[in-house]
């Protein structure tokens, strides 16, 4: 079954090179159209109803997100393409949506397409992913949502609700308000990086806490903290000073 795709990018080079790469390495999909800005893209999507779009984020006359905003329901898969945009990539990661970095690596492209093809079509999940993305992308947004891989599916939680994360080998247990726990297949390091600009702090090799939920710090060699759910978490000796410095800024 051939899949129709639309490439949306303002730069000719990027557009054309992606087109060529798809033609050459991904025979299972067909490029139905190319758009240079979001207005053009909107029209084309409506006309052609593609199963997948490659969407550039940074474009004059409206970003990729602005395009998505125009749809009430999205019936197509999305792979974002971007040269470099730390901020946007973070938001995409929060929502667990696929993205490609330009210049495009052929293997990455193949993998992304593979995932789209294999993915169980669950439009409601995808919609939720997109909603959380559009929600998170707002700069003033404080109530961010994050999609967590739990088993095969995705669970959406509010960043606010995360009390702490605990490492368990290659898995990470995320402890949420209301005694909920989610075990994810990502490492604690990945979460530390993901939450880098949020109010999180790695107090221990296997503990990342949300300072928003910090109730008390008890002094000791390293000391320990008591979180809002009453759990006690040890602070490592190595991290103590940095932690105290951080606290003094709060």
């Amino acid at each position, binding site marked *: 079954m051939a899949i129709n795709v639309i490439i949306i990018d*303002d*730069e*000719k*080079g*990027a*557009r*054309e*090179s992606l087109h*060529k*790469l798809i033609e*050459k390495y991904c025979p299972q999909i067909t490029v139905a159209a190319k758009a240079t800005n979001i207005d053009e893209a909107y029209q084309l999507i409506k006309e052609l109803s593609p199963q997948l779009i490659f969407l550039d*984020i*940074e474009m*004059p*006359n*409206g*970003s990729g*997100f*602005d395009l998505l*905003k125009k749809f009430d329901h999205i019936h197509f898969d999305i792979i974002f393409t971007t*040269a*470099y*945009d730390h*901020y*946007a990539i973070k938001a995409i990661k929060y929502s667990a949506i696929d993205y490609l*970095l*330009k*210049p*495009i690596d052929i293997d990455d492209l193949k993998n992304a397409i593979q995932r789209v093809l294999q993915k169980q079509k669950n439009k409601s999940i995808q919609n939720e992913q997109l909603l959380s993305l*559009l929600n998170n*992308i*707002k*700069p003033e947004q404080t109530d961010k949502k994050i999609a967590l891989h739990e088993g095969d599916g995705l669970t959406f939680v509010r960043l606010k609700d995360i009390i702490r994360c605990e490492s368990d080998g290659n898995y990470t247990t995320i402890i949420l308000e209301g005694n909920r726990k989610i075990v994810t297949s990502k490492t604690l390091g990945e979460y530390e990086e993901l939450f880098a600009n949020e109010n999180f702090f790695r107090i221990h090799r296997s503990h990342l806490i949300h300072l928003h939920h910090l109730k008390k710090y008890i002094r000791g060699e390293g000391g320990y903290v008591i979180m809002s759910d009453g759990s006690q978490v040890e602070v490592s000796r190595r991290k103590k000073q940095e932690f105290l410095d951080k606290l003094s800024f709060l």
Partner: protein
Amino acid sequence: MLIRLLLFICLSFVSVLYAQVPLFKQLQEQDGLLSNKIYDLKFYQGYLWIASDKGLSSYDGKQFTHYFTQQGLSENEIIKLQSDAANRLWAVGASSRLNYFTQGKFLLLPSNETFLKLLNNRIISTINSESNGDVIVTTILGGGTIRIKNLTQVETLKQDWVNGASFFVKQLSPDQFIWGSNSNAIVNKKLRVQLLKKNQEINLSASQGYSKASFIKLMSGEYLYAKDQELIHFNDSIIIGRSFLEKNIECVYEDHEGKIWVGLNAGGAVCFPMGTISQGGYFSYFGNKTISAICGDKKGNLWFASIESGLFYLPPNPYSNYTPPKVFSSEKLNKTKNNVQTTNSNNSLLINNLLNDDVLTLNKDSVSIKNNADTLPPLIYISGIKINEKDTLPGNYYALSYSENSIKINYAAFSAVNNQKFQFRYRLTDFDKDWIYTDNTFAQYNALPPGDYLFSVSAMNAQGVWSKENANVFFKISPPFWQTLWFFILLVSFIAVLVILFFIIRVKQIKKREQEKTQLHKRIADIELQALRAQMNPHFIFNTLASIQYFITDNNVEAANQYLSKFAKLMRSIIYNSRKKTVPLKDEIQALELYIQMEQLRCNYSFDYEIKCSENIDQNDDEIPGLLIQPYVENAIWHGLTYIKDRKGILKISLDKKKDFIKCSIEDNGIGRKKSMEIKAQSLKPHQSVGMSITKERLDILNSFQNNKLSVNIIDKINQQTQEAEGTTVEIFIPLFD
């Protein structure tokens, strides 16, 4: 440390102002005395008691307390004071009434009939206390000698020879009295002193009459008796020395150093500095004032009461324990003392001059000289020394401050022959080159510079015989503190400390400045790095690479090569330029051109560009901070030119040199700042203009180093007809960096 040093300096100054040679000072009515007419002085219970014609006063060195009839005195005019063994102070009124002071008030001796009768308005001449508390009073003119027991009983002491006419009595010990009396006052008017213990009489003087007499026991155990003009020094058995003064004697006193002071009627006071009575060997003070009493206090002050001028006093001499250097003939003076050898049974005093075995005999009627009077050398002595016009305590050593440098020395000579005329010669060693010969009896030196001086004087009699030995006085005038060695050392160390402090502070300052500089440099480095990162905008890099990727996927090897090498060139120049503070304009323009070409590629050549560089710019030599213009160009492209659809974009960059700066204008025909911002505001995704904020910060730092400030001017171009924006011009004024 500094404070301690300053304190040390201050204290040192204080120590320089240490006690100077004591000079006589005066207290008079205006200083608090009741009267300048003072009859007697006594030091009693820590106070100096002053008897005057207007009342009795006590003085503690600061304040006077006065006693009058209101305080219990019989009369205000008090002529005599005496303390007794029962710790009472007796005050004799002018009308011979006896008051005594005890427990803070004066009481009149009970008017015992016997006592009143005995006194009978006679003048009380002496009042003496006995060790048991009894008081013995003598009166002039036949009142006799009265003993007052327990303040109530009165008895007349009957001694044959005293005969009721004794004028003087002193108890030396419980069983020893010394009496002075006119043994037969009317008949032969002989004065006698009886030493009761040995039951022996010594005829002391032929002086007659009832005039005032004084008697003291000296510290040596010897006695000094004075009456009229005569002064007699004797011990239990013999007369040691005697001297006739020119005026009647009012009082005698031995001070704590053993100097003998004699107060004279209308003749001032004289001092025998060696404690020996020798004819002429004394200093004179107070001119022709009448000194009625002399008394020392606990602090060592010596007080003099005068009948007409109030009180004088002499503060204690801080050098009294000083042993003068060998040069001074203190030995000589001592020798004089030794030479005065006394004898004798017929009222004569013999002075042996050991040096030539001459014997000088003085007796009450005449002075005779054995051997040849013509060849007898005259004795020379210093009779007074004034420092800065003020009398001083006699001495042979004076330590003076630099301001006490005006010295007048009076000297006198005497010999056995009366009315001799003397010739003197004197010399101040190290000041006078030679002896100075004169008839004057004083030498005056004004404004002596600091130093050590020895004043020597000797006399020659009419026969041309010089004194055997000179009279000498040593003066040490200390330099003012600013001329002393220690001051110099102090000054040098003070300056050294200041210099060190200065250096310490300076070093700290420099360190601090260096630190600040380092910090600033670090910040500059940070900014430079950020500037580099802004040029190497990842967005730009990766997008450019994506564009080049297209040529590769399109098999356009030539174009791929061309752009890849251009891109490499741009990257290289950005990295290279970012290491330098300033770059030649040529390099900057080249990098700019490469950059624009890359952007053109990305934008599919939707705009054209031109770079104009005016003739007056030396592209090789004129330098500007690198990577400065690029962010403005990027802005023009991505926020102005990429939005336009209806026309071809045009980017114009022109560089012009004006005086000492380069004017760079970047002109685009894009949509203008306002519209660009509107579009961005609509977008979900926030715009982060990192490049511009870094550039702004960089400008601030560059400006903090320069007097010529970098400045940026943004002009919105408006179409006159449509009133629509038709682009933006940015003008950057870059001072030329040498």
